[in-house]
């Protein structure tokens, strides 16, 4: 069982209309050689980090990324290219979900542990991440480009004083606003809503 304080959040299912412009603004330029899935991931992660007020991830933080369909579209593109020639190199690289982890590492000026978990549930992603999490916490994301797109991220720090048992949280609500702490116990999620029953930093003092 581990409890995390939520320090930053991006809940964007779907992302706002202006997300591409917003991403170009955050990067300082329009990304030119990555696909939509990776762009969505960058947009959400950088938005989440900005909300957390962090420019860079600490070296002992970890990035955990999940997706239902991941690089589906890039893979379809490469399979079409392979009909009569080799695929384009950048298109092939985009079929590898771990390219997004490398892009994030470069963008956040960070070297560390990052992992992609394919097709599972958000609570399973948090479970695996929590088992390895150190004091630097997690940047945990869920990105899909199907059905209008989704890019949902949390910046989580381990610990945080909470009172009571919280409330059961559905997996698809993990990234939703409304709670300041989240707890993972085996495969079950509990949320600690803002305001109510939280000691927080003040209470702990």
């Amino acid at each position, binding site marked *: 069982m581990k409890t995390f304080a939520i320090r930053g959040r991006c809940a964007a299912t779907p992302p706002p209309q202006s997300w591409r412009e917003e991403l170009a603004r955050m990067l300082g330029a329009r990304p030119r050689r990555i696909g939509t899935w990776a762009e969505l991931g960058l947009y959400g992660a950088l938005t989440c980090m900005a909300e957390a007020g962090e420019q860079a991830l600490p070296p002992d933080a970890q*990035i955990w990324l999940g*997706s*239902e*369909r*991941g690089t*589906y579209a890039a*893979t*379809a593109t*490469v*399979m079409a290219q*392979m*009909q*009569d*020639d*080799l*695929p*384009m*190199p950048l298109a*092939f*690289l985009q*079929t*590898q*979900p*771990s*390219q997004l*982890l*490398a*892009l*994030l*590492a*470069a*963008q956040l000026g960070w*070297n*560390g*542990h*990052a*992992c*992609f*978990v*394919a*097709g*599972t549930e958000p609570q*399973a992603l948090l*479970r*695996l991440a929590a*088992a*390895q999490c150190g004091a630097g916490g997690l940047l945990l994301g869920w990105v899909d480009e199907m059905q209008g797109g989704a890019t949902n991220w949390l910046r989580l720090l381990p610990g945080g004083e909470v009172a009571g048992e919280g409330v059961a949280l559905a997996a698809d609500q993990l990234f939703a606003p409304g709670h300041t702490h989240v707890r993972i116990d*085996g*495969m079950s999620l509990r949320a600690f809503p803002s305001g109510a029953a939280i000691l927080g930093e003040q209470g702990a003092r």
Partner: protein
Amino acid sequence: MKPVHLCGSGLACALGLDMKLALETLRQGGVAPSQITLPGMLGGSFPYRAIADSQKDWNERARQLVQRVAAEAGAQQAHNGVLFIATSSFDIGAVEQGGAQMDYRAFADKVATWLGWTGPVYAISTACTSSLNALIAAHALLAAGEEEEALVLGVELDNRMTPGGFAALQLLTRSDSKPFGAQRDGLVLGEAVAALRLSAREPSPWKLLGGANVVDGSQPTGASVAAVANMYRRALAASGLTAEQIDLIKVQAAGSPGNDAAEAQGLRDAFDTVPPLVSLKAAMGHTMGASGAAEIALLTACLEHDEWPRQEREIDAQLHVSLAAAAPENARRIMATILGFGGSHASVVLERA
């Protein structure tokens, strides 16, 4: 922290359909690679270390290989535990045949059904380091007491997309893989299905002490010297060992001009005296997401059965490293490293009683 034991392993690769056959092939000096033909001007014929199994239907072939390899690792004793599937290509080969949709969950469900798995199933995909990241994740769950049994299953089977992409990135050799070799000019890809069974309750001479993965975004397709050194330091710290205590390192050394050089330099930065090194890439090819599990399975079997894969003889003198011509005596503490796309650098530490 509970101790995590490596209790069983299984392997199907170009060397053979099981470990006994693979060791037998090594004893005879290895096997010649088969060929794969790719379209386009930069395509053509490339060596490819395929599994010698003539079944044409991807799903049927994968089912037979997965069941066979899992059984060899004793997977039936772990069915209620956690299953990690590690792959970079999922079932793309079946998608190419019209036998699957590109769908992660459907793939994981299919493999779990083949194994009659009842516990949780996770699919880890971090390109070539997938199996090692799965091992690190499994180790964390078992050491924390959250699970008692785990199976890490590396699956990398025939498809056109992966070799096509590697050829487009001009990473493949048209001759053979020469790890750390003076004449090295690229990788040879291979197929593998490999299983490692971990347990927190069953004893075994082999313990998994821990590991580390360092992602460095500065090189999209290659290794970074600083990240290699950082990865070794972190892996040692995670397993509670010092550099002097390591008896053997299974390196990546896939025969790539730039990557092998970065790896050698990173090793020399992390170790004042570099331990004996071994590469399995020339014997079995680079089996990408399966390679971590496949190479650990083969390496531990080699040490147990006194076999040793033939190593590259003409080492590049500029790298200032060497490969061990025979197994070091009493090699107890062993690191296994994989470097890959997405700037991923991973290593795990094993200890033999």
